[in-house]
């Protein structure tokens, strides 16, 4: 028979998983609304790194700020109203979140389906993109933050061509990463982005 203390622990675990799912989804919505300061603020001050597609590895909170604020968000440069067509829809799908027994660390796998619009060769182009996340989270002062964000791109194709015809367009390394991307193997490489979890039944 369970006592009140055990029950409380179980409630906390359920709340933690819900909080982490919300954190991951909020990241997507902040990205969509191009609020990159808000994205940076979802990372712990002691965050390890962010590693997105071909951009390279950005270490520490300072590197994460460089990636999202300086590079993707183009820093404090005011947005040209004529660029309102630029858009990034990053749909966060299929969260498998596993809490560490410590209760202050967790890992999550997700996949993303993106519809993007930005300049390519001076021309506005529309893109379909797919990828998987394997992220790590940390609980500090009662709140969940990103500790590591690792997004593995499957393909990055133009709307007019599709992934089989043209798996990859428009991806370049950022100017100032701390290292090369650790696992950039887009389609059709057949690369399997490893799961953080074991098989739930066989344990393998």
């Amino acid at each position: 028979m369970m006592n009140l203390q055990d029950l409380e622990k179980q409630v906390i675990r359920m709340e933690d998983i819900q909080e982490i799912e919300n954190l991951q989804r909020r990241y997507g919505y902040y990205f969509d609304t191009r609020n990159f300061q808000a994205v940076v603020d979802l990372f712990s001050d002691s965050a390890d790194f962010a590693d997105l597609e071909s951009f390279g590895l950005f270490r520490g909170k300072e590197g994460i700020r460089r990636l999202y604020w300086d590079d993707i968000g183009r820093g404090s440069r005011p947005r040209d109203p004529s660029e309102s067509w630029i858009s990034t829809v990053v749909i966060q799908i299929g969260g498998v979140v596993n809490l560490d027994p410590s209760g202050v660390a967790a890992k999550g796998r997700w996949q993303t389906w993106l519809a993007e619009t930005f300049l390519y060769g001076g021309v506005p182009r529309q893109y379909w993109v797919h990828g998987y996340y394997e992220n790590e989270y940390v609980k500090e002062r009662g709140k969940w933050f990103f500790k590591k964000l690792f997004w593995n791109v499957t393909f990055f194709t133009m709307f007019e061509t599709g992934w089989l015809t043209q798996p990859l367009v428009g991806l370049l390394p950022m100017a100032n990463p701390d290292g090369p991307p650790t696992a950039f193997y887009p389609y059709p490489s057949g690369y399997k982005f490893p799961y953080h979890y074991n098989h739930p039944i066989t344990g393998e």
Partner: protein
Amino acid sequence: MATLEELQARITRLEDIKQIEKLQRIYGYYLDYFEFQKVVDLFSDNAESVEIADYGVYKGKQGVKRFYLELLGGKPPRIGELSIGMIMQGVVDVDPNGKTAKGRWYCMMIEAKPTISLHEGELRQLWGNGIYENEYVKEEGKWLFKKVFFFLNFRTPYEDGWLKVPVVGQHGPSKEVPPDEPSTYYHPYPSGFHLQPHYKHPITGK
């Protein structure tokens, strides 16, 4: 005021739903990578059936193995073959007994597959869409698949779209790995048939 036992039962229900959601999503990730043995291991030994689109009904754990390992996994995937299933929007209902459950999910598919048969012909890039109505069972504290049923809405070449070409690459039951029974509900777009949900209306109860 709820008793400790009642609270415990309620927490267990919430945990069950979360476990089932994870099971369904993990299933999707294994399928993305053609890891069919891992998929089979997510099914109960007392599994009822698996039925996908027009392939027909494969019964029991033996049928589940034949479907995933022999039919889908009979040959290794070709270079460039892609089979991504984005499983979304789960509605999971745990039965009052706490041992069985049902779930409805959307699946949006991003694929590159041969369309002449499962393994032959030129690769085509495809969009797909359908709905799962699955059943789950809890055994020894773990949730497993009891039944997988997938209703194919459309699978269309990227260049054409669902209005022009609703379905490609479906050719009925396999002759090499035949099903135990024919399909029970294969009515892709634009048949006008709709797969009814397992649940009653949450407000009216109808």
